[in-house]
């Protein structure tokens, strides 16, 4: 494509991208700031203090944002509107808080609390009152919690009500129905640690995969994500020799990425048919998508001399945003899921990282 034709195509595409996106701006991690980008105009609204701010996450419906930031005594969670206003600060004495995630109804925020000698514990805040409670039971350690939107998965795990698995799941289901449940990477061991997928309720932390797979503890799982309905979960594991993506659903567990290079960070599409993810299958870190039902992997953003990472689906799956350092500075781009010409959404010398599209308002 010639220069002017390319510019014309880019201009047309730029006009086509719309919506707001939360992201991190700043090259220096110590002063990195949470911000909101208007993708149509390029206007950036800072929402965080720029003190090691963590990746921002939207509440369902997109009315609020949550992100970690460095307070006087450690990390705390800021909850703000999309303009940075109406701020509420969640903090716990002698604990550093990180990895916030909203529950499906937006009423709760789960995050990880790390205090002196305690490792990571799941703590759940009531978003309205700010009241908090540690979840998962005594001594449980975990990282990167995500809410399970429904208990459908538990049913999928064991539809037979009389089995041993059902017996183990029954008290969990009861708690999950009452208070909700989380998935997380449980951290086990002391001198020799490992990670394992766990279900976390108010009082229990239960390894998930041993209910289905023998010897699952030999592998280290990470990056668990539930689809919007809570019927399938995607996660990564080094089961198979290198990092692969697996999907657990009604049909059991399936390796959906299966390549000798690493596959990381699965992200569900809104229609929960696809996963976007990062892979090194073409040499550099690139963004790909896989049709979960078939395992068909397609490239989304792959560059010969640069990396692309951190995929994020737009509402209605029209675009996938990602970060690339193809121009030296990591910037955010958007591309149609089927690939093609990417549109650069951020500019300037400052890095732009961790894009998260603002969800559409929920219907009453």
């Amino acid at each position, binding site marked *: 494509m010639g220069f002017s034709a390319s510019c014309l195509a880019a201009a047309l595409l730029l006009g086509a991208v719309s919506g707001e996106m939360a992201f*991190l701006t700043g*090259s*220096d*991690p*110590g*002063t*990195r700031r949470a911000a909101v980008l208007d993708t149509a105009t390029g206007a950036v609204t800072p929402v965080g203090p720029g003190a*090691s701010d*963590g*990746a921002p996450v939207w509440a369902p419906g997109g009315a609020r944002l949550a992100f970690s930031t*460095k307070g006087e005594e450690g*990390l705390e969670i800021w909850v703000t509107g999309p303009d940075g206003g109406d701020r509420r600060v969640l903090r716990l004495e002698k604990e*550093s808080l*990180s990895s916030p995630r909203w529950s499906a109804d937006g009423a709760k925020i789960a995050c990880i609390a*790390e205090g002196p000698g305690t*490792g*990571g514990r799941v703590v759940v805040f009531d978003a309205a009152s700010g009241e908090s409670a540690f979840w998962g039971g005594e001594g449980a350690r975990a*990282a*990167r919690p995500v809410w399970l939107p429904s208990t459908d998965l538990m049913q999928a795990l064991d539809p037979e009500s009389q089995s041993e698995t059902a017996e183990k799941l029954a008290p969990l289901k009861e708690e999950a129905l009452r208070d909700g449940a989380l998935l997380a*990477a449980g951290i086990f*061991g*002391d*001198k*020799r*640690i*490992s*990670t394992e997928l766990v279900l976390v309720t108010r009082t229990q932390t239960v390894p998930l995969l041993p209910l289905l797979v023998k010897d699952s503890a030999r592998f*280290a799982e*990470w990056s668990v994500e539930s689809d919007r309905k809570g019927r399938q979960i995607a996660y990564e594991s*080094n089961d198979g020799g*290198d*990092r692969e993506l697996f999907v657990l659903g009604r049909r059991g567990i399936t390796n959906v990425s299966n390549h000798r290079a*690493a596959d*990381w960070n699965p992200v569900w599409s809104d229609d929960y048919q696809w996963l976007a993810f990062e892979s*090194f299958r073409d*040499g*550099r*870190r690139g963004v790909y998508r896989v049709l979960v039902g078939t395992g068909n992997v397609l490239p989304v953003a792959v560059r010969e*001399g*640069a*990396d692309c*990472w*951190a995929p994020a689906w737009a509402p209605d799956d029209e675009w996938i945003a990602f970060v690339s*350092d*193809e*121009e*030296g*500075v*990591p910037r955010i781009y958007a591309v149609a899921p089927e690939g093609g010409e990417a549109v650069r959404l951020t500019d300037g010398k400052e*890095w732009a*990282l*961790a894009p998260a599209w603002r969800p559409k308002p929920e219907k009453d």
Partner: protein
Amino acid sequence: MTTNPSAPAPLFTPLRAVLAALLFSGLCQGTAAARGADGALGLIRVPNNGMPALVTPGGSFEAVLLGEAELRLAQGDREWPLTPSWTSLPGGRRAAVCAVPADVSPGPCALRATADGVTDENLRSVWVFAEFPREHYVLAHLSDTHIGKERYARSSDDINRDLVAEVNRGDAALLAVTGDLTENGDPEQFRRFLAVLDTAAVPTFVCAGNHDRDADAYERFFDTSTYMFTFGRDGFLVYDTREYLVADDDGPQNGLLYRFRRALKPGRWSVGLTHRHEDGMGMRAQLLLHVDEPIDFLLQGHTHTENEPGQRVPWGTTVQYIVPAAIDGHLRLFDVTEQGVIPRAVERPVETGERKDGRRGPPR
């Protein structure tokens, strides 16, 4: 200083004393001419005296520059024009693959680049070896030099210069300095650190520590904080754990770590060089370096105390060696052999003088 009686003859032994003297006298005159007036890097970004190229005559190395230039290799009064092959890098940088003329003598070289009538020079940036060791060599490890931290009667510059002189007197082939190079990242402290570093008669590899995190100061002096190099049959992976949330998961580093780790896999030993390891550091970096493709050894500082005997990172795979702080007069040598990276006893060969606070011994 302890020595290994079974060790083969050290590299450059006949040259070492002369070399150290030449370096000192040459650098007294020449430091300001190299790099910018303030010591910051100019046109030539890589290699530099904190991440030099190691080559044999007739071998090649890659240089990274802000733009194309006429390149020359200089050693003493001699100069060799280079005929690089140029490629583009993201951000407008240019990479030059340069063959080293066969008649360059073993020892340090300066890389010179001239563009638009202006010459930039990186001293001690290319080290020519007659051959690389096959079985055994000695690695010197310093950390936490804290230039600018004046806790003793002797200046931080003098203490660290004496430590480098001690390394010069021994049989080390390489010197690694793993972070907290400066007390607070002040450019003047970096300039003073460079003056100390350039007294070394062996190649010097550095990384950033939490005390070096002032904005982009480290990058101005050493360009990149994540890189790899090989020496003989061994691979070294240098990575950035300087920030409060160590090993940033959102930025480009994880992509580099994966590719570097894969590139180093065929080697004999893989050695990580970084400032610190924390249980709460970026989980992706931990999975990469300690679970999926575990590195064999990790050399670090930060704690100012020595590791416990037999200490490993908590995943149980990687042997962890921590050297107490150079600012307190400490260094450690390692024998790198077919049996592994074997530590000698931590030494405190340098007199620091009385502590200014009147207390005795290094602070804990």
